[in-house]
């Protein structure tokens, strides 16, 4: 049938490539622009929230928690409104996850508080008896990387035209301006927390990972 191909490695390889390549083109490209459009009201993450998102990624929270509510009654009852494509327009990378060892977090900001997260991260079992989530005490000692988060926000603004600094959108500005905004935002969270370690660090101008990740969690709505 194809005996000629099996003697001609070059054309064989070309044939393989053509056969495997076009499925991706047909499934991904047609809706690409449409899928990139945000839902009205969706805003990009603030720098502090982005830093928290980086903590989320660093500790692979997405290995056990999804951020995708499927359109079933059992899911909307448990987690809230099902996910819309445009809600993810500023998610780079997407964090849908593929396993729910723990519950979905797509709208966790609607029903959990700073106080709840602080206690839960220190010792999940204290709030959820039987929980198998690890303790995340190190988030109380590690310092959040605000500079990298700023770099990411500025990059997506420059390269992908993410609407920072536009009307009704999060303000970015220069790094110095941004740092002031981040501190003001972090202060609101630190004020709601109990940990003397976190408070003392904040007084020195340091923002711990726990503060950033709570900012991120609270933004998920």
């Amino acid at each position, binding site marked *: 049938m194809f005996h000629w191909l099996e003697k001609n*490695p070059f054309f064989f*390889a070309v044939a*393989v*490539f053509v056969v495997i390549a076009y499925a991706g083109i047909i499934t991904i490209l047609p809706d690409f622009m449409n899928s990139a459009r945000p839902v009205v009201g969706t805003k990009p993450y603030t720098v502090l929230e982005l830093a928290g998102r980086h903590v989320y*990624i660093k500790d692979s929270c997405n290995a056990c928690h999804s951020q995708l509510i499927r359109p079933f009654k059992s899911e909307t009852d448990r987690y809230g409104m099902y996910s819309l494509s445009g809600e993810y327009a500023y998610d780079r990378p997407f964090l849908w996850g593929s396993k729910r060892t723990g519950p979905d977090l797509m709208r966790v900001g609607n029903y959990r508080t700073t106080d709840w997260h602080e206690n839960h991260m220190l010792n999940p079992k204290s709030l*959820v008896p039987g*929980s*198998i989530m690890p303790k995340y005490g190190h988030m109380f000692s590690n310092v959040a990387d605000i500079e990298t988060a700023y770099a*990411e926000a500025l990059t997506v603004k420059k390269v992908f035209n993410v609407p920072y600094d536009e009307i009704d959108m999060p303000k970015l500005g220069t790094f110095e301006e941004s740092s002031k905004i981040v501190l003001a935002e972090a202060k609101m969270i630190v004020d709601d927390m109990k940990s003397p370690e976190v408070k003392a660090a904040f007084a020195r101008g340091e923002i711990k990972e726990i503060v950033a990740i709570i900012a991120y969690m609270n933004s998920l709505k």
Partner: protein
Amino acid sequence: MQSSKIINYDYSVAKLFAIATIVFGIVGMVVGVWIAFQMAYPELNNLANEYGTFGRLRPLHTNIAIFGFILSGVWATWYYIGQRVLKVSMIESPFLMILGKIHFWLYLVGVVGVVVSLFMGITSSKEYAEFEWPIDIAIVVVWVIWGIGIFGLIGIRREKILYISVWYYIATFLGVAMLYLFNNMAVPTYFVTGFGDWWHSVSMYAGTNDAMVQWWYGHNAVAFIFTVPIIAMIYYFLPKESGQPIFSYKLSILSFWGLMFVYLWAGGHHLLYSTVPDWVQTMGSIFSIVLILPSWGSAINMLLTMKGEWQQLKDNPLIKFMVLASTFYMFSTIEGPIQAIKSVNALAHFTDWIPGHVHDGTLGWVGFMIIASLLHMAPRMFKREIYSKKLLESQFWIQTTGIVLYFSSMWIAGLTQGMMWRATDQYGNLAYSFIDTVNVLHPYYTIRGVGGLLYLIGFCMFAYNFYKTMTVGKEIEEEPHSTSPMAA
């Protein structure tokens, strides 16, 4: 086949990769068993501060198992099979020889980079594509070197017709290259802004598009690492070890092109009921079902190759490994399509049935094929008998028991959790809180851990057997024609 006596094949690169396969196999499985027990006994998460949590270790497990263990196995067999089916030795080309060695050592450096960065939590978060851009670039270099190696060897071949295995290695090379490049497209933030960590980058795609590209990659990384090169192995080693010709050449052509055509469409089945367009989901679902045809085509071709020679299953443990591997391949490629049916997926997605499915493929099909391949190669590479048949027999049963425990416990766990998530009481309210659905899984998580541990024990027996074969196996004069010689 007589020319194999004339050509003096060089296995130095194959040997290096064979040893890497075994070492990474043990490391990857140890981490796997450890995180399996972490799910049953969560206290195990906090023994090494942030570096010992499930979240940090899980990407290490997947990446060492896939890109350490399996990929080394793929390369070990390529550097063995490639020369033999193309009828040309690597000695004949000093260039390819050096390239092969660079391939190995550069790859090793890459692995070290991966381990260190994942421990530090430097990750892009995309499954099986967690590495940041500097490592991605190193991987592309390694990959290109392998590509030059493949086509270089093909360029100086004596056998004009490319054997089936070579088709599959070429497809592995091209498929992974394409998928990896597009999925890892990212913008390094430091070089755009001058702020922050130099290794950090941000994905070129956002949200739903990122998910589409990721699972187009994720599903097909499975295709082109867990399936395609493993079929290359079985097409070579099963006929060689059994002394039987391939049942049907036509069927192998049909299965090959069928697999190439269908596989890439199926990624959408990872995103059913998500926010990707409905038609993409439906296509993913349908093509997953169609995928049964080429998958079973190869597997049936293998099983029928044993036609009339089934007594070898009793006499030769390597045949046993390979036949069970193709059986697990059939099993896994019917289970996958079932999970890709939309209504089944509604229940199965996000549950433990999915890792269960992955592992009956990887442990049963991929793991067993790599073990059988390396043991077939050992007497020919080291000119020694396999050290112990008895050890091999017990390894087979220990590992098979391990796999059965693994997938059966994960089936039950997955279905239980899926059913509990959607269960309602008589008033239509959710019947269980989330934590109820976690606590009920404890016994299954324990059984799964034990299953994994048995598989690991079996793998260590294999490592010992291989090492002993290498060092003290009885020397043999002539290369065995088919059945690999082994001491009782």
